C-alpha cells in the first residue's frame, strides 16, 4: 500500500505545522474535523476526485511563495453601498473593517465567539461533515479543524446592504485558513460579496444554512494575483422554497479549486451556481460542484464558462444527484470553454445520478474556438479584430454572468471581464 503510506506522510507533514486553535464552543467541532482529516488523509494525485488538478501545492507544508500583484484598478465592489469586512493574509483587520452592526443581521468574528451557548455551535463543521459523503473533501475538514479566523453571520431580516468580505494578500508566503458560517432565518435575505486574492495559499470554507423561504445571494471575485493558490469550499443546505444563488469570477491565479456542495432538503427550493473564469498562460482553474436533490420540485442550475489562452487549463466536475423521492426535479448543467489557442485545454466531467422517475435533467459540455463567421461579420461592419473578439468572448461568458440577479453587480463583473480581455489581447 505505497499510496496509503504516501498519503499518510503527506497528511502528517501538513498537520505537523498546524496547531488546533483552542477555547470556546468550536473546540469539539475542531477535534472531530481533525479526526476526519486523519481518517481520510489529504488529497493525493491518484485520487479520482483530483484526477485533473494536482493537489500537492495545496497539501504540502508551507505555501509556495506568491509574488504580490500590484495594479492600479479601483477595487471591485468599492463603489457600492456595503458593509466591508477586511482580512489581511487571513487575519481580520478591525481598523480597515466597517462597524459590524447592521439591522437584520448579527456579525461576529469567529476568533471572538467564545461563549458556550452560540447559534453557530450547531452549524460550524456540520454541513462540511455532511458534505464528506459520498465524496471526501479532506481540505474542507482541515479547514474546519484549523481555521483561525472568519465571520459568523446570522441573518434575521433583510439587511439594507450587502456584506462584503475583502481579502488582501500582503505577504508573499502567507498561508491562510478562513471559515465562515452564515445562517439565514426563515424569510431572511442577504447578499454576501467576496473579493481579493487573500494569501499566497488560501483555504476557505463557507457553510450556509438557508432556512425556509430565505434567499442567499453570493457574488465573488477571486482577485488577480497570478501566483496565488486557492482551495475553497461552499457547503449549503436549502430549506423549503428557499433560494441560493452564487456566482464566481476568476481572473488569473496559478491554481484555483472551487468546490460547491449543495443539498436541497426542502421542497421547491432553488439553487443556482455559476462561474466565469478567464485565464492566460500559467492558469489552472477547477470548478467542482455537487448538488443533491433530496426534496420535491426543486430547481438547480450550474452554468460554468471558461475562456482559456496560452496554455491555460480549465476543469469542471459537476454532479447532479437526484434521490429517490426527489420527484419533479428540474436540473440543468452546462460547462463550456472558449479555447483561444491550441495550447489551452478544458477537462470536463459532467455527471447525473438519478433515482427518481419524474425528473427533467439536462447537461451539456463543449469546447470551442471563436466563431470565424461571426468575427468576419463584425469586422465587415467596421469593428476591428481585437474588440470584435472581445465582444464575442463576452457574449460567450454572458450566460454565466446573467445568473447574477443584481444589475449593478452584473455590470461591475462585465466591466472587469471587458477590461481583462482588453489587457490580454494577443
Amino acid at each position, binding site marked *: 500500500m505505497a499510496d496509503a503510506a504516501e498519503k499518510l506522510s503527506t497528511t502528517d507533514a501538513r498537520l505537523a505545522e498546524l496547531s488546533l486553535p483552542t477555547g470556546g464552543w468550536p473546540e469539539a467541532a475542531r477535534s472531530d474535523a481533525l479526526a476526519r482529516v486523519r481518517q481520510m488523509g489529504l488529497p493525493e494525485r491518484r485520487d479520482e476526485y483530483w484526477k485533473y488538478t494536482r493537489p500537492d501545492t495545496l497539501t504540502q507544508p508551507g505555501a509556495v511563495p506568491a509574488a504580490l500583484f500590484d495594479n492600479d484598478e479601483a477595487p471591485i465592489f468599492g463603489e457600492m453601498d456595503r458593509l466591508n469586512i477586511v482580512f489581511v493574509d487571513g487575519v481580520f483587520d478591525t481598523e480597515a473593517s466597517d462597524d459590524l452592526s447592521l439591522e437584520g443581521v448579527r456579525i461576529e468574528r469567529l476568533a471572538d465567539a467564545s461563549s458556550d451557548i452560540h447559534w453557530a455551535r450547531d452549524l460550524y463543521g456540520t454541513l462540511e461533515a455532511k458534505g464528506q459523503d459520498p465524496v471526501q473533501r479532506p481540505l474542507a475538514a482541515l479547514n474546519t479543524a484549523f481555521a483561525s479566523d472568519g465571520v459568523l453571520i446570522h441573518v434575521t431580516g433583510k439587511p439594507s446592504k450587502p456584506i462584503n468580505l475583502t481579502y488582501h494578500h500582503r505577504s508573499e508566503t502567507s498561508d491562510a485558513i478562513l471559515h465562515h458560517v452564515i445562517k439565514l432565518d426563515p424569510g431572511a435575505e442577504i447578499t454576501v460579496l467576496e473579493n481579493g486574492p487573500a494569501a499566497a495559499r488560501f483555504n476557505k470554507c463557507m457553510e450556509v444554512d438557508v432556512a425556509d423561504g430565505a434567499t442567499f445571494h453570493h457574488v465573488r471575485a477571486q482577485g488577480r494575483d497570478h501566483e496565488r493558490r486557492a482551495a475553497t469550499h461552499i457547503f449549503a443546505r436549502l430549506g423549503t422554497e428557499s433560494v441560493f444563488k452564487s456566482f464566481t469570477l476568476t481572473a488569473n491565479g496559478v491554481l484555483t479549486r472551487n468546490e460547491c456542495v449543495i443539498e436541497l432538503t426542502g421542497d421547491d427550493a432553488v439553487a443556482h451556481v455559476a462561474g466565469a473564469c478567464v485565464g492566460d498562460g500559467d492558469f489552472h482553474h477547477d470548478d467542482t460542484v455537487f448538488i443533491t436533490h433530496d426534496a420535491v420540485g426543486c430547481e438547480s442550475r450550474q452554468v460554468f464558462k471558461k475562456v482559456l489562452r496560452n496554455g491555460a487549463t480549465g476543469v469542471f466536475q459537476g454532479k447532479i444527484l437526484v434521490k429517490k423521492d426527489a420527484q419533479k426535479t428540474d436540473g440543468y448543467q452546462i460547462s463550456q470553454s472558449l479555447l483561444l489557442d491550441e495550447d489551452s485545454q478544458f477537462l470536463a466531467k459532467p455527471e447525473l445520478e438519478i433515482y427518481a422517475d419524474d425528473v427533467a435533467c439536462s447537461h451539456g459540455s463543449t469546447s470551442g474556438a471563436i*466563431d*470565424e*463567421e*461571426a468575427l*468576419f*461579420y*463584425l*469586422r*465587415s*461592419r*467596421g*469593428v*476591428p*479584430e481585437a*474588440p*470584435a473578439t472581445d*465582444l*464575442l468572448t*463576452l*457574449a*460567450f461568458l*454572458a*450566460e454565466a454572468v446573467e445568473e447574477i440577479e443584481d444589475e449593478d453587480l452584473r455590470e461591475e463583473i462585465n466591466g472587469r471581464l471587458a477590461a481583462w480581455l482588453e489587457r490580454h489581447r494577443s
Partner: protein
Amino acid sequence: MLSIKNLHVKLEEEDKQILKGVDLEIEAGKVHAIMGPNGSGKSTLSYVLSGKDGYEVTDGEAVLEGEDILEMEPEERAAAGLFLAFQYPVEIPGVGNMTFLRTAVNAQRKARGEEEVSAAEFLKLIRARAKELSIDADMLKRPVNVGFSGGEKKRNEILQMAMLEPKMCILDETDSGLDVDAMKLVSEGVNALRNEGRGFLVITHYQRLLDHIKPDVVHIMADGKIVKSGGPELALEVENNGYGGILAEVA
C-alpha cells in the same frame, strides 16, 4: 466610386480559380446589378471585396475612391465606406443588436477620426430608421439575428446599412428567402438610401428584385467574368429567355 480591374481570385485551400478577370466601374449615384447562373462567381466577388478569408487575389485591383481596398483589413474597408449586405446574415448569440450596431457605428467613426455618437443620440437615430423598416423595439434588443425570420434578417441588414451610411453598398442576393411583401419593404429601404454620392452593386439571380430596385446598368457574369453589360432590358431578357441565349451569344 468603385473600380475593379482584371480581378483574378482563387480559393486559398484548393487550386481553383473562381474569378478570371473581372472589370467593373461603378459610378457614384448609380445602381449596377450583376446577374448570372449559379457558380459564376457573384458571391465570391462580394466576399473578396469585403475581405473574407479563404480567397487569394492572384491579379488585378479593386479601388474605392482612389484607395486599393484589397490590401485592407475588413474593418478598414468598412471604415473606407464599403458595406456588404450578406446573403446569409450571421447569428451572434449573446450580443444585443443595438450594442452591435452602436459598436460598429462608433468603431467606424473612430477609424475616420470622428467623434463617437452618444447613447441618446444613437437611440434617436436608430428608432427612426428602424421604424421605416418596420423593425420593432424587440428586434433591436434581441441578440443579432438570433431567431430572426429570413425577412427580419434582411431588414436588419438594411438597417445596418442605413445606420452606417456607406459610400458603396454591395447587396448579395438580398432577395433570397423573401416573400413579396418583405422584398417590397427591403427594396423601399434600399431605394431610400439611393443618392448622388452612393454607389450600389446588386447581386441577384432574379429579375423581380430589379423591378423594385431599378438598376442603371446590368451585367451578366459567367465563369468568373462579366460577359455582357447593358441597360435594365438585359435583366428582362434573362427573365424571359434564361442565361442560355446570352451565354451562347457571347461564347
